[in-house]
């Protein structure tokens, strides 16, 4: 189950607080890019060998490997960004990401930062007056520093809601 993955203690101290602020700023910027809808910038949040997977909690809990989106390497993310921008047909929409409850594990040897955060993604279709909850779930992240800047080596988006409403067009 998701709760089985424990964080021994949150990162503390001045360094811990600073890291936390950095990660929060990272997530806020990540949300801004997706909410603005400019997919070209999205792969830049990842390392070249990163994995990005969006999957239902149903699969995650049962150790089933599929992803609704399953990207191995930044190249696949760039392909997705291109394909969605240039070839995909879908009803116009806005997304709004809310990322909260950031949990950060103390940094281990090797400098990989393990963190999780809850997310809520609201989707507004332009022919509907109201937004609806598109996904609610958790990011399970691994960050590393590339030239001093934080980059995602892994972002697994595990959503609680069993059903995807119609389609998942833009990344989570």
């Amino acid at each position: 189950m998701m709760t089985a993955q424990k964080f021994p203690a949150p990162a503390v101290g001045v360094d811990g607080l600073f890291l936390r602020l950095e990660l929060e700023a990272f997530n806020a910027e990540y949300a801004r890019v997706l909410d603005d809808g400019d997919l070209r910038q999205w792969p830049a949040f990842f390392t070249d060998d990163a994995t990005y997977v969006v999957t239902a909690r149903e699969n995650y809990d049962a150790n089933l490997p599929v992803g609704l989106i399953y990207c191995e390497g930044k190249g696949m993310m760039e392909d997705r960004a291109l394909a969605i921008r240039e070839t995909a047909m879908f009803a116009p929409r806005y997304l709004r990401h809310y990322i909260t409850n950031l949990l950060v594990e103390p940094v281990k040897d090797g400098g990989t930062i393990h963190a999780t955060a809850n997310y809520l993604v609201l989707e507004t279709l332009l022919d509907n007056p109201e937004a609806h909850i598109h996904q609610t779930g958790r990011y399970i992240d691994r960050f590393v520093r590339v030239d001093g800047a934080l980059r995602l080596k892994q972002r697994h988006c595990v959503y609680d809601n069993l059903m995807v409403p119609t389609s998942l067009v833009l990344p989570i």
Partner: protein
Amino acid sequence: MKWHRAAMAEAVEEGGVIAVDIDGTPVALYRLDGSVYATHNVCTHQFALLSDGYLEDGCIECPLHQGRFDVRTGKALCAPVSEGIRTYAVRVEGGVIFVSLDAPVSSDVSVADVASPAAAASADHARRSSDAGGERFVILGAGQAGGRAAEALRAAGFAGEVVLVGEEPVPPYERPPLSKEILTGKAGVESCALLAEPRWRELDIVLRLSTRAARIDTTAHVVALSDGSILPYGKLLVATGARARRLAVPGADLPGVHYLRTQADGLGLRNALRSGARLVVIGGGFIGLEVASSACDLGCAVTVVEQEARILNRILPAAAGDAIAERAAEAGVRLLTGARVTALEGTAAVEVVRLADGRRLEADIVVIGIGVIPNQELAVEAGIAAADGILVDEYGQTSAPDVFAAGDVAVYPYLVRGRRLRLESWHNAQEQAIAAARSMAGHLAPYRGTPWFWSDQFGANLQMIGLPQLTDLVACRSDLGGSSALFFMSESRLTGVIAFDDPEAIRLGRRLIESGASVDPVRLAERRTQSGATSTAPTHAAPRMDSEPMDLEPKGRGDETMISLQQPADSRSDGRSPSQAYVWPEEGLVRVPDWVYTDEEIYRREVERIFHGRTWNYVALEAEIPNSGDFTRSFLGPTPIVVTRAEDGSIHVFENRCAHRAAEFCRSLRGNAKEFVCPYHQWSYDLRGNLVGVPFRRGVDNKGGMPKDFSTADHGLRKLTVTTRRGVVFASYAEDMEPLENYLGPDILREFDATFDGRKLKVLGYYRNTVPGNWKLYHENLKDPYHATLLHTFLVTFGLLVAGNKSAMMCDATGRHGVMASAKSEGGGVDADRRKEMRAYREGMTLKEPRLIDYVEEFDSPWSVTMQTIWPNLIVQRELNTLGVRQIVPQGPNSFVMNWTMFGFEGDSDEMIRHRLRQGNLMGPAGFLGLEDNEAMKFVQDGMLRCPEGRHLVALDPDTEAGSSDTLISEAAIRAMYKHWRQELGL
């Protein structure tokens, strides 16, 4: 050995059991043939006290699930218990029972929190049966129901005041003769009285006639009457019946236009009917036909106008309706079906009935019989729950305390089909009212009335009992004497009988329906062999009952009491009449009307005739339930089901609905279980869906419990037929389905086997999404190769599908299944020239990760992509190396859920699994192709819902009317599907 004082010896009677507590250990003491025995008192299966159970033949039966233990040895004797119960040594000395607990007790359960189950069970009953004497009971409505209820209150011993309030100026009378003997003048109104006038006085019932209730106040327990008086009541019965539905066309209020509901209506019509008069009857239901029959007897020239394609279309199978139509025609009645009345015309009185097609029918008299509307307004205004009638429970109680309802106005739960019914029949009005009256008087007896209708017309007697459905199995019998009967069956139980001049069949039917006994269709059809030549043709009616021939030669009138038959409650709310409005466009299959995709009635028929009809439906992969006890929740059509693997490895499918109170008991997506226990009342079922245990089945202290003749064998879960092929599990509501291989046909089977090639499947995970579109749009999407290159520009942009790729769109012989197939360019990689061509198409666009569209050849098939549509709920996806089964779960006409189970094979390397997962980006609700299909289907449904009443154009490829085509610019496969669909739905 330490002995504990347990109880006085006389506390345990011969053949009895008591509970005692010994140092915190719950112990049961039994006396058998004079000797006392002791066991632990908690069942080894689930938490229940054996002392609440049933002692018989030296065995204690657990009250919860009927596990049995030998009290002398503790041995477990039958399922569901497998572990024996601990026994203890006993000695009796000086009138005292001593028990030794020296042998350790295996269970450590405390019984401190167990409440006596007896108390709660009887409390409600006691409250409801409190003495009602000295109160005033008021009955609103003085018809068949109200009159019989008043009489029954006295018969049940109610001694208080009974007030019967009726709108008509006459005491209660029987309505059936109004359309027959009263019209023909063979009887006078006095012969219709329910009771002779003095009888009301003898029964001391206050009749308040020409009076109606204006308001009910359920809180104050008073009724305000139309004469201004206020009538307090202790208990109230609403038996306000129904009123004739009015025809809403110009001129419907002209003199000469009649309805028939009340005695005054009947007398008015009798005075108007005279020999030679031209009568037009609007509505070919039972009332209309009975009037037509009587008017013929009087020498009138009768025309019956029915807007549906057949008379009695909503009640009877076509053959039965046609037989009556034939009798009517012989009697000289002109039947105009499919004819809608638009106006009644005349100056001083009605002269002409005008039809929608322009015809004008000259008329001296018009009778309108288009059904009735329940008189529920009073109850609704009082806040009493109602939905096309006042809702009552099996005791006739409404949602308001002390308020009951019965008769035409009441909707009651009918056990056999598990449905709520509102019946408009003489029989129901009488029996339901009597049951409600008994409940009011404190004698609680549930009303379990089996629906029974009766009609006499054109010399034939027609009866119907039970609740036959179009999907039931039908056995037909008829003899040379002219009588005939149709027996309807579901799960080998009789659900209904329709009989012409065959009251014996109705009596037999009533007995079999009410006993719930298993029946053999062949024997039913043969039962009456002594009457000469007998047709013995048990046949399966589904999906079209009316396809069955019925040999009907109605003979003379039977001598039973005349009972009127009216149309059953019409649950349709949109006012659209099926066969009138659902007319397929004249152009044929090249036009598909919107109602195919948006109409609730069409959807209801689809569930009944397609998903619950003679189809194989995908329900699971065997790889999801590899071990005994494994289960997974699934759906068959919209219906939730559970798929299990039993101890012997066999696979079982049953409805996820407790046989007791309908609870959808299995809530986990999947898991492993030894049994299923409904959480509501702990009814337990084995892995095959058989009912194993019913808590307190035998009651407690010899009180309560199930009826003596209750048999668990009769109350299992609804089980479905199962078949598997190559690890794929299918189920069907039909019990005698053809083999899957025949169902698929050779071409589809070949492609099915190409994907499921014998390797063991390995589930990689699930996608689930909703689509706001009709479920058939998904089939059409995959029978529509035209869209592939147009909608999915990804395919063209990145070279998966280019002009010149080999492709095919195949259908099976019936048109319901299909395979869309294409072959990637030679060699499995993207052809260099083609790629150049594509780059030219979209400058600068190439995949950074071209492995996405690699094809690793692994199938014995010329195709690199096949999409199989297997009717009605399965898509098998083989898109290069990403494999999946997609299950369609319809959610009404306007949306469905798609459940995707993605799989690979045992023995796949890690890299092969990852290849499948990477390629998964093409499909699913986030797939480059999959998301576009979902969006497009939403657009289609939006278009139909927002610009309604249109028709689709499905005309591509006129050289192929319907079926497989050798061009991709074709919609012939969609037309093939609708050819089949129309047959299935009878449209």
